[in-house]
């Protein structure tokens, strides 16, 4: 029997959480080291899996590192884990951000024990979503995540934190309820909860209690809240803005990617016909996401809120890549999820440092910081370049792959128009990013910030990790595209792509 790598990755963080929560009289320093250790090992293992992952074309569509155990035989629910080319990069991303989130929280001194316990539980639940191959297990991990997130925002957040936390919970529960209905309908139709098995079944001839398209939309609603798709997006700016820095990083970095991941795995993988039928609608929403999100971003005055709204615009690109239904566009969507995770992760991380060190988050009251915080200015600029898709960063390669793939995709008619509209997004992204950089870092030096300190060594180190990854993917994209392809090729093949 082989070693259960995936279970180890998933449950080590929560094991750390339990130790932190239960072992008495731990100093806050010890707690931080425990948290770091219990996130570093999963990171190391997931990197090992990434290296060991079989990228050959023969393995396309095959789950690797699979684990299977009977769980609730009565309803045919199983403890079933596995990763393919689609989920593995997201597992790596989450385990990386999980570790970095601990480093980002190194200065946390409020109710340290609870904070790290919740943070580690959060990591476990998101990792569980990306690795579960059983719909019930998937749903449980999907819902658990609400709880740590609620406490992390409402206790350690800022601003209207209780309001934002509650809003987050309500929206996610709303999506989750519809999703559960979708999962149950699917279960009653097929008698199975195995995602791989259902994906290989032709659902059309089966007798369904409600139309397949309805199941498709029930599930999609849950995913749409997470991604988010306009008009279900309004929880995101509040939650991202009021969450503590490390939680914002995880929210933007991986949590919203659950939506994109599930759309590819379930909405498209299981319901290809419905996906193709309703693709024009979703492509339209994608274009709206991109342009509408960017337009609202341009009007923001709060540094974190601006980054939060830019995520909505960037997730529009993901949606475009997904529902263009071409192989390249889907790979692009995967790349964009990964790339946005590290770029926006870094943006939230440095925005957090700026806010922490200056005590100011209103963009109109900041300015000229490039002289007082030179290292932060450079880091912020690099992250900004990624956000606006400048070549050599991962942002460029992801967005251009989506555009090329979507425009050339012949699965959905009219996709070219939505692609061209979405191109406007990179123009608007340049506008809001450069405006942000100019207002915060350039212009005359302000005396009130003379005592502000620059990034310390720990901050420089974790920022350097983000930056190295942004350029690694930007310069050598095949490190990821080869992996994504093995997972996505069989899904794209459903459309003859």
């Amino acid at each position, binding site marked *: 029997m082989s070693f259960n790598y995936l279970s180890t990755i998933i*449950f080590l963080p*929560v094991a750390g959480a339990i130790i932190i929560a239960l072992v008495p009289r731990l100093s806050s320093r010890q707690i931080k080291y425990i948290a770091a250790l219990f996130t570093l090992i999963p990171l190391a293992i997931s990197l090992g899996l990434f290296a060991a992952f079989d990228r050959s074309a023969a393995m396309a569509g095959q789950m690797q590192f699979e684990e299977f155990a009977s769980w609730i035989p009565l309803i045919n629910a199983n403890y079933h884990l596995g990763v393919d080319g689609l989920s593995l990069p997201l597992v790596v991303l989450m385990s990386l951000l999980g570790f970095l989130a601990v480093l980002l929280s190194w200065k946390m001194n409020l109710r340290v024990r609870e904070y790290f316990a919740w943070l580690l539980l959060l990591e476990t639940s998101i990792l569980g979503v990306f690795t579960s191959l059983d719909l019930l297990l998937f749903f449980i991990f999907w819902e658990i995540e609400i709880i740590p997130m609620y406490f992390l925002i409402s206790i350690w957040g800022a601003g209207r934190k209780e309001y934002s936390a509650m809003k987050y919970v309500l929206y996610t529960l709303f999506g989750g309820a519809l999703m559960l209905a979708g999962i149950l309908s699917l279960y009653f139709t097929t008698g199975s909860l195995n995602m791989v098995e259902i994906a290989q079944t032709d659902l059309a001839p089966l007798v369904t209690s409600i139309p397949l398209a309805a199941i498709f939309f029930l599930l999609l609603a849950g995913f749409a809240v997470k991604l988010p798709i306009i008009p279900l997006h309004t929880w995101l700016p509040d939650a991202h803005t009021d969450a503590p820095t490390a939680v914002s990083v995880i929210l933007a970095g991986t949590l919203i990617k659950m939506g994109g991941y599930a759309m590819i795995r379930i909405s498209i993988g299981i319901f290809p016909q419905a996906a193709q039928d309703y693709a024009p609608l979703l492509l339209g929403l994608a274009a709206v996401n991109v342009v509408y999100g960017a337009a609202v971003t341009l009007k923001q005055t709060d540094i974190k809120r601006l980054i939060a709204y830019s995520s909505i615009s960037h997730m529009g690109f993901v949606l475009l890549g997904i529902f263009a239904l071409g192989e*390249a566009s889907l790979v692009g969507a995967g790349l964009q999820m990964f790339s946005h995770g590290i770029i926006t992760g870094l943006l939230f991380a440095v925005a957090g440092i700026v806010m922490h060190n200056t005590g100011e988050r209103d963009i109109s009251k900041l300015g000229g910081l490039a002289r007082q915080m030179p290292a932060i200015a450079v880091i912020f600029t690099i992250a900004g370049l990624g956000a606006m898709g400048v070549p050599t960063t991962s942002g460029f390669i992801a967005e251009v*792959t989506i*555009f090329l*793939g979507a425009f050339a995709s012949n699965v959905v008619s009219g996709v070219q128009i939505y692609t061209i509209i979405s191109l406007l997004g990179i*123009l608007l992204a*340049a506008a809001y990013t450069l405006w942000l950089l*100019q207002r915060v870092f*350039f212009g005359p030096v302000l005396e009130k910030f003379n005592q502000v300190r620059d990034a310390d060594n720990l901050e420089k180190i974790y920022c350097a990790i983000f930056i190295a990854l942004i350029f690694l993917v930007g310069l050598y994209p095949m490190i990821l595209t080869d992996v994504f392809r093995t997972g996505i090729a069989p899904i794209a093949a459903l459309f003859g792509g």
Partner: protein
Amino acid sequence: METVIPNELVWLIFLLPILSFAVIALFVRPFLNNPRLSGYISISAIFGSFILSTWVLISLLSAPGHELVIPDFNWLVIDSAINIHLGLMIDSLTAVMLIVVTLVSLMVQLYSQGYMKGDPGYHRYYALLSLFTASMLGLVMVDNLLLMFVFWEMVGLCSYLLIGFWFHRPAAANAAKKAFIVTRIGDFGFLGAILLLLSQTGTLDIAQLHSLALAGVLTGTVLTWAAIGIFLGAIGKSAQFPLHVWLPDAMEGPTPVSALIHAATMVAAGVFLVARMFPLFEHSEVALLTVAIIGGLTAIFAATMGLVMTDIKRVLAYSTISQLGYMMLGLGVGGIAIGIFHLFNHAFFKALLFLGAGSVSHATGTFDMRQMGGLRKVMPWTYATFLIASLSIAGIWPLAGFWSKDEILASSINNQPILFYLAMVTVFMTAFYMFRVVFLTFGGQYRGGSPANHSPRPHESPSVMITPMVVLAVLAVGSGWFNVTGGFSRFLEPSETHVFQGFFGILAHPLPWVSLILAGAGILLAYAIYSARWLSAERIGRLFEPFYVVFSNKYWFDELYENIIARIVLLKGLFAGIKLFDSRFIDRGINAFFIENLVVRRFFSGLKSFDNRGIDGAVNGVADTTVATGRVLRIAQTGQLQLYGMFIILGILAISLALIFFS
């Protein structure tokens, strides 16, 4: 000398400056912090690139078809369509560009040793110059449209960082942002063309696209739209009407950077792009005509604004836009060789003009010509070289500018008579505004320089600045002679049938005489107004007041774009409307009603207190936020959510742990 350059060394041409950037940014700046070393590393790298570029040129002169084939390797392979290889396309066009870019960049970097001495951002300056040059070199060498776009954007990024080099000055930060955003509007077209070409042909390889266009496979509306999209990119980068507005503001960067932007890198990229994709334009009459018309119109349009500017760099900036218009016109009516020949000559004299302007401001502390004057005596070298460059740009025989400008005029007279007449008027204007600069700056009496300047007596610049100017002056005289017998044209276009008349033979035709007379008239008028003062500048100004108002307000394009479109229509109108819609209608309207109301009422109605006390405020959507927050806070404190959560979590944990241990 017969040895053909090895492939590895060709790669080094753009890798050397990239390496220089990396070494300065990652090693010299953080660990050694020795500014002089940064300068030397950067200059050595570009010097190496220049030597290698010369070798490439020599190799190509004897190579079959003037082309080197460099093997490539995979960069981004996703499916049969997206199959991008990193490879080089070294042909005569590339070789010419390599020489221009490396030589001008080398001169600019040498000059900067004096100009930027003591600047606190010295490391950053040289690191960015290296990256800027490398990006431009990569742009002219790659064999694939997508990679070209990569370098294209890198060039834009570097000019953003260099224009905003003195970022603490709001004007510099604004100009940098403006340059990036305006050129990105053009990039929208370029990227659109890339998408179109890939989806229609399945390739982005430039040589393959050429052959598809030549074979008539790539044709019709697709070809036209692709060519127009590419040209839109060129309009942005090469500051053609109506995206010209960024270039005059770009003078906020250090002056040597302006020299580089205006001569060899940023703006040259657009002209190069059209030349590189010329087979596509050649097979689309509409596209080629668009290039010619936009070029011809921009040439005269920009020249009119150059007539009235008082800032020496602004005059030069408008002159660049105008000359770029000539190049586009040359491409549109004559072909690659004619357009690129003007780019080649212009690079040297325009770089020289900017370096001269920098030298003048180094002495006087200002760029305002109204505060200069009389510098001829104290700055003899600067004066002499600036005069040569001015004569060259004015198109005076036998200086460089004459030859390429004459070719453009000769090609347009038959094809596009209207554009030809406009171009002739532009010849007159060019001579006038350049000599207006010469007389205002160097003639008459010194008018005191900048009020803030602490050394009231202007002085000649150090030899490290003068030497590059002298080298460029030699080229501003002689670079045109490469095509006196058509050598330059034959190198670029084997099929060129243009008749070349030789050094003196050209004077046997009427056209050169007409253009020379027009240029001479322009110089004479400038002399009459600004030197001899036979005519009063004020009287003439009053006479042509409506024109003066229009020109000096730059046709109100900045006003239109920045205030009316960007600020009022978009930011205060459309975007503000969307934001309001987002917060009022979507967030506090629909979402508050359906999600918060339905979820809570229907699914969690058991949680009575939750429902009654907490959500009504948020649900009704109009509630004051503080009230709502207070209510939500109370819900959280009732503890029911925690309870709900704890139940779920404990159950799941138990099951999960059990499974791990028993599996």
